[in-house]
């Protein structure tokens, strides 16, 4: 049964924890998929799921039925994931600065392009897709995931992330450009 249609949101807002449990059970998998696509990391995705529902519970009284409950959850999840990605990257940058000498040597070695024998295999294309998504900035990845996988409109994404329509559009354009650059050499092999 659809918990939302069954009035679970209203009951949860009135303090019915069983109703909130229904909502958690109904939306957890979708939030996990969104979180994993955004963070690219299973442990982080689990953190996002947990924190999303804790935050949703605390803010339940603020939910208004103007948007669907799942869109509201997406908003909470994507904002938290965005913060998480940014924090992780700041830590990584610090760590990399700390090891800059060793890294410089490694980075000076040009990345080898995969030859036709390697890119033929679907699993390698999937790895390449994961790597390409990792190259996007936190903002680009979030906007792209919400548009491409979750089907939110650009206007909805701008509202959810508080970035406005134009900035969101440009984040998606930049994401698509970067993905094309990384994936065009291999994309044709998947068809």
């Amino acid at each position: 049964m659809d918990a939302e249609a069954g009035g679970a949101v209203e009951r949860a807002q009135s303090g019915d924890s069983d109703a909130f449990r229904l909502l958690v059970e109904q939306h957890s998998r979708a939030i996990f998929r969104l979180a994993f696509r955004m963070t690219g990391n299973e442990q982080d995705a689990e953190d996002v799921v947990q924190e999303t529902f804790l935050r949703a519970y605390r803010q339940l009284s603020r939910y208004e039925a103007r948007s669907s409950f799942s869109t509201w959850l997406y908003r909470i999840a994507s904002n938290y994931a965005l913060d998480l990605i940014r924090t992780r990257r700041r830590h990584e940058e610090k760590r990399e600065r700390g090891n800059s000498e060793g890294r410089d040597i490694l980075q000076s070695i040009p990345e080898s392009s995969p030859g036709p024998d390697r890119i033929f295999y679907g699993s390698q294309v999937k790895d390449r897709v994961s790597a390409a998504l990792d190259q996007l900035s936190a903002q680009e990845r979030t906007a792209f995931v919400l548009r491409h996988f979750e089907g939110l409109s650009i206007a909805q994404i701008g509202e959810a992330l508080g970035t406005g329509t134009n900035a969101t559009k440009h984040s998606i354009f930049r994401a698509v450009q970067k993905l094309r650059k990384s994936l065009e050499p291999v994309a044709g092999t998947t068809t």
Partner: protein
Amino acid sequence: MNHLSEEQLTLFYYGESGETGGVEEHLAGCEQCRTEFRALQLVLNAVDSAPIPERGAGYGEAVWQRIGGQLGTRKRRRVFTWWIWAPATALLVLAAFLAGRLSHRTETGQTAANQQQVRERILLVAVGDHLERSQMVLAELSNAPDQKGRLDISDERQMAEDLLDDNRLYRQTARTTGDTAVANVLDDLERVLIEIAHSPSEVSGAQLAELQQQIESRGLLFKVQVLGSRVRGEESTPVGQRDKSRKNL
């Protein structure tokens, strides 16, 4: 002939309404743009192949098992901790503290010093709890999301009302004991708590921004956090070493 830009093709791919006028017609008559669009389609379709770990049908229940306990704790804390024992503790603490001060002159050496230590410790614990609860209210409002509609802050308003009486008592006590730095922070906190307590149950975006501005301009959340952590630190510090750190508050 002007060809379609990558941006136009991207918007067309995603079917963004209002952004695709003329694109379909152009593609029908332009081989170069059709090729470009096919290349874009291939890349974006390939993105769908990104692996994603599956979660089974029982996943939602597992999530609930992880968070259910935390939800219960938070709720109980608000209902019981907040409403019932906090004001009573504040009164008891103040009464004990002031009673101690009034009888101070009649007590002798070691006994008076021991009683003073006990009173200070009780006061510190109570003030620490008070600051922690205040911090929760300030943080809830400071982190409230921007939104166009009205925001329900009835919980925060009720909490601020409850905190006000305690805050006055602690502030007066701090002044009486000459703890000026603590009294000043509690003074700032009181002004903001009054503002929150006097706000409507539902505020507009502008009203929320004003409250957030008041919290931010006084650096209040930071001050309360610092004071709270120092008070918690003092709880575990021997009295003899406490006075030095207190002057730095």
